[in-house]
């Protein structure tokens, strides 16, 4: 029996096209500050923040199967870590952003020891309960400004344009880094292990995948990313309060973005973020109807089209811009 050499393919045509388009987009974003459109820059920062939050939640729920509705804890902790590091400890505020991520990850270790005792639906509620504890603890701490919160003062010496420019650059860097990190992780050995756990816990366990460690790893990565995003958001907004920073709304937006865009894919959150923004601009005058529509869309999507918008596109046209699978070409 003759054997032909079969090759393992890791890229697709769509991914090569996507890489080119992505590079063009990135170039465009880098050039944006030259136009002086500060409002647009702020919007991009917001968009990137939501995208990164979505990617982090997607990693957790779509790939690790951990449905957390308490990730807002890390957003808030990241935001407050920024203030404490920059204002109280004199760290450069821009440097404090990644450090805030580390702080969030540390709290994540603590949180995991509590919530990993639960599974499924009770895990979800448990994460929410812990997020509430963090919120209330912060709201009762005088040094953190209690219920009224605090303002980031460390950036005051900077000219507004400089601050906005550096924040923007930081956001771009975080956005690119997050996408790259998630992509690389999923294509790595740990990533394959993760997808195996998602597909079948017993099977992956029998193949030597340490389920607990794998899940913990993902939980920490997600917290880290979410913490950095929280710091970024409040670097942009400058004013933080517990009710805003630890609000369940962050998780609501994240979940809707991921579900509507496409859970368990890398492209999904991108599509979802765009849909979210579009809807927000269109329905800006309609107050709570916007959230009602979002909620209804998420429910319908989950019921009829669980693959999400991107999932439908990918199925129909077999496109994978971020291929994380390996195909065997015989």
């Amino acid at each position: 029996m003759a054997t032909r050499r079969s090759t393992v393919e890791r890229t697709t045509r769509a991914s090569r096209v996507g890489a080119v388009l992505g590079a063009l987009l990135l170039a465009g974003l880098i050039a944006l500050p030259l136009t002086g459109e500060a409002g647009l820059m702020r919007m991009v920062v917001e968009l990137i923040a939501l995208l990164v939050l979505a990617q982090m939640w997607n990693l957790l729920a779509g790939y690790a199967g951990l449905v957390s509705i308490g990730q807002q804890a890390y957003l808030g902790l990241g935001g407050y870590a920024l203030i404490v590091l920059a204002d109280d400890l004199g760290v450069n505020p821009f440097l404090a952003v990644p450090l805030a991520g580390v702080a969030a990850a540390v709290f994540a270790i603590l949180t995991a020891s509590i919530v990993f005792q639960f599974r499924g639906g009770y895990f979800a509620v448990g994460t929410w309960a812990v997020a509430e504890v963090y919120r209330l603890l912060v709201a009762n701490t005088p040094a953190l400004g209690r219920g009224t919160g605090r303002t980031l003062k460390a950036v005051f010496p900077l000219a507004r344009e400089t601050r906005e420019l550096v924040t923007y650059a930081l956001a771009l860097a975080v956005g690119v880094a997050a996408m790259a990190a998630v992509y690389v992780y999923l294509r790595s050995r740990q990533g394959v292990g993760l997808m195996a756990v998602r597909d079948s816990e017993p099977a992956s366990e029998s193949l030597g995948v340490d389920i607990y460690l794998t899940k913990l790893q993902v939980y920490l990565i997600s917290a880290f990313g979410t913490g950095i995003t929280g710091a970024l958001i409040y670097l942009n907004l400058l004013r933080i309060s517990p009710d805003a920073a630890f609000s369940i709304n962050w998780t609501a937006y994240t979940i809707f973005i991921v579900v509507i865009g496409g859970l368990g894919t890398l492209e999904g959150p991108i599509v979802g973020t765009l849909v979210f923004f579009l809807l927000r601009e269109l329905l800006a005058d309609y107050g709570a109807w916007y959230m009602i529509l979002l909620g209804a869309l998420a429910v319908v999507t989950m019921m009829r089209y669980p693959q999400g918008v991107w999932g439908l596109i990918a199925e129909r046209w077999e496109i994978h811009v971020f291929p994380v699978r390996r195909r065997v070409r015989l």
Partner: protein
Amino acid sequence: MGWLDAVVQGILLGGLYALFATGLSLIFGVMRLVNLAHGDFSILAAFLAVVAVRALDLNPLLALLLVVPVMAAVGYGLQRLVLNRLLGRGILPAVLVTFGFSVIIQNGLLQTFSADSQRLNPGGIETASLALGGGLAVGWFSLLTFALAVVLLVALQLLIGRTAIGRAFRATSDDGETAELMGIDNRRLYGLAMGLSLAVVAIAGIVLGIRTTFTFASGPDRLLFAFEAVIIGGLGSLWGTLVGGVILGVAQTVGAKLSPGWGVLTGHLVFLTVLLLRPSGLFTTSRRVD
């Protein structure tokens, strides 16, 4: 309010929390579903009671008689039309869909009633109090609500322990597939469970709405309290749930006495402590390994 007062108030509050908890653990037991909109449904019931009181000039406790069947029907309908379709697809769809319900209900209430605080007024009973001696006085209404909670818990206990439907709930909880082989139509059963859950939570929601103010956003807290009472008390025992609710209630009222902002937080901290020390709860009788 003296310390003993705070404890007594906590106990009485605990009865209501036990009702919230029972509604949650019933559906979790029967169909492994955690309804993230659990608290929001109780707020919805309270708002419906507000409407009934305004439109029909009713006493809130009478409005209860109107609202509870409506909520039961809503529960049955939602389960059969929406949630039953998510069965067998793992927990993610159910968590996300009930979360979606939570957002829809909260924002729907916000849109309809604005962010104003609401309170149901039962006209008089609630401020009258009963002297228990030793300088301790307990509101009649608080006592009534506790009695109501206990009566409901007893009724539920009888339903689950002595009726065919109750056996069906327990059997389905144990082994859904074999229960089906016994002839139990689990789609209908799940609908009944959800209907019952929302009925119980509607009663608790309306009663709590007489005791304290509420807004469109008060739902999630109630979900958390229900969850905490379940965990503290342990699975499988209605009386364990009552004790769990009482412990939570007392922690909250005593904590609030220590410092106004610390009420709910103290409850959370007690919950976390019980979780870390005795993860299976204080009174687990469940033979199942969950």
